[in-house]
């Protein structure tokens, strides 16, 4: 059992911890996605080998590898990798990748133009905020902003700044809009006439359990020039925590952007304070998923994350509470079609599978309180009903352990 090449089944790990860490491998990219990421992000000979492997894959290939809904946004980055390396590529594939990049370049110019009045209005109103996520990363850590697809503008601020911020962006022409059910709910969402959404957040992450005081985060921000305007963005270690935290608890990780973002950030040379990163991760109670994700980045994506950081995260993850465990498992299931994917992802044996099944059906009381669920009985009954229904519909897939979509 491995996380990006790192053996997890250490004899020192208790069976429950080993089972938990194995179940959480579900957070990581699937093998075909992993090959694509290696082709885009590895360096030198490793990248050449990865590109060769992807290009030779008859089922996926360079173009087909980005055909999934989530991975489409990665085409500019794939073009960047191929062009930088001078990789010989089918002209038809190159045209597709260039079109994706040209589209993103042209689109980013529009995003910049649309965002300017909102940024100006917020600064005029004296609202303290930080640009976070896509636009902040595109503007500060990617070699070309168009390599990072952004579907909205995200800003983080203190709760008490929210009313003034809403008023400011509305003055800048952003209007109220209906919520987007496919994404975590921000504190406020407004949309520009062009269709570009702007999301105002008062917490770093949508999962309330993973909390870090916003005032502390804002105090560590630094000023950057983005689109010719000076704006504040998160400290690199907070950026990384935000990237991994979103991957840990939202279906957005299926876009694979979290890997590219973390790669761009760590390779950007901004200087991550790793001790601060660990302190914040522990404080935000994110050590369980972040331990898995950071180990993947270090081992599979060859990113220079200090061994001491990984060991420290693993140590904290091993001592995680049942509530931390259950929330990490719930995060891993976010966006999964198959409720039992956690169980099916375990390959080391029936004991570990049984443990994962137990956590799924019978989580801790603290988790039930956290999610305001009625009782263990109701939850178990709900799962049992679902399982029976699926057995009746597709018994062969259930019995073969392939799982089923609801």
């Amino acid at each position, binding site marked *: 059992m491995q996380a990006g090449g790192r053996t997890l089944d250490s004899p020192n790990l208790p069976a429950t911890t080993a089972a938990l860490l194995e179940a959480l491998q579900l957070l990581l990219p699937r093998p075909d996605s992993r090959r694509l990421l290696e082709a885009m992000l590895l360096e030198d000979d490793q990248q050449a080998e990865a590109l060769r492997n992807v290009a030779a894959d008859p089922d996926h290939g360079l173009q087909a590898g980005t055909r999934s*809904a*989530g991975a*489409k*946004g990665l*085409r500019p980055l794939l*073009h960047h990798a191929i*062009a930088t390396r001078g990789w010989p590529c089918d002209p038809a594939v*190159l*045209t*597709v990748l*260039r*079109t*994706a*990049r*040209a*589209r993103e*370049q*042209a*689109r980013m*110019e*529009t*995003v910049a*133009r*649309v965002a300017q009045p909102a940024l100006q209005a917020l600064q005029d109103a004296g609202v303290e905020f930080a640009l976070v996520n896509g636009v902040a990363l595109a503007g500060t850590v990617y070699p070309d902003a168009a390599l990072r*697809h952004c*579907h*909205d503008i995200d800003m983080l601020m203190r709760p008490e700044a929210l009313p003034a911020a809403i008023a400011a962006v509305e003055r800048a022409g952003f209007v109220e*809009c*209906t*919520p*987007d059910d*496919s*994404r975590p709910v921000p504190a406020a969402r407004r*949309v*520009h*006439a*062009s*269709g*570009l*959404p702007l999301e105002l957040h008062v917490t770093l992450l949508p999962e309330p359990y993973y909390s870090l005081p916003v005032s502390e985060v804002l105090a560590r921000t630094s000023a950057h020039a983005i689109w010719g305007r000076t704006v504040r963005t998160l400290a690199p270690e907070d950026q990384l925590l935000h990237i991994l935290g979103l991957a840990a608890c939202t279906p957005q990780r299926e*876009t694979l952007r979290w890997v590219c973002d973390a790669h761009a950030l760590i390779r950007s040379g901004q200087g991550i304070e790793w001790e601060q990163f660990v302190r914040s991760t522990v404080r935000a109670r994110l050590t369980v998923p972040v331990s898995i994700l950071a180990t993947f980045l270090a081992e599979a994506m060859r990113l220079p994350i200090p061994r001491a950081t990984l060991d420290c995260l693993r140590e904290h993850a091993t001592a995680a509470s049942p509530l931390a465990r259950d929330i990490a498992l719930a995060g891993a299931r976010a966006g999964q079609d198959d409720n039992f994917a956690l169980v099916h992802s375990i390959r080391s044996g029936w004991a570990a599978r049984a443990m994962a099944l137990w956590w799924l059906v019978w989580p801790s009381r603290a988790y039930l309180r956290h999610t305001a669920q009625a009782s263990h009985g109701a939850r178990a009954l709900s799962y049992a009903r679902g399982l029976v229904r699926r057995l009746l519909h597709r018994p062969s897939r259930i019995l073969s352990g392939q799982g089923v979509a609801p």
Partner: protein
Amino acid sequence: MFGNGVLILTMGEPMTDARRFRVNMGDVAAKVIDGEAIVMNISNGAYYSITGAGAAAWELLESGQTVTEAAGRLVERYEAPLEIVMADLQTLLATLVEEGLMTEAADRVPESDPDLPAGPRVAYEATVFQKFTDMADMLALDPPMPGFDETPWATDSPAPKTG
């Protein structure tokens, strides 16, 4: 020939042509990447690849040069007689107009000259123009659309879908 086919433009009669054109900015976005002009019609999801001398021709026409001026610049760049270059340019223009990518603009003020690659003249590469329609979903991925210019088409529309 269009669709997924290839159109190789051929010779015609050289002539003086003082017409200027502009890109249909509301619907069309374009970039030249690695010597290939990528032109996207956001309104219908079609995209076009222009390679050979046509990529440079696109840049010259996009910058507001007259057809004759553009042909002159191409002759400085490529080892080809003016009449061949001019004929190819005329055919390319006709196609661009037919596809709704450019329109004639008599009032167009030329912008600064695009930076074509410097150095000695190179062998002439005939323009290859291809049209594709297989990426409409990607081109319509997320708002705002490239080229958005305060056109409030979304004012009365429902909340945009984000991915």
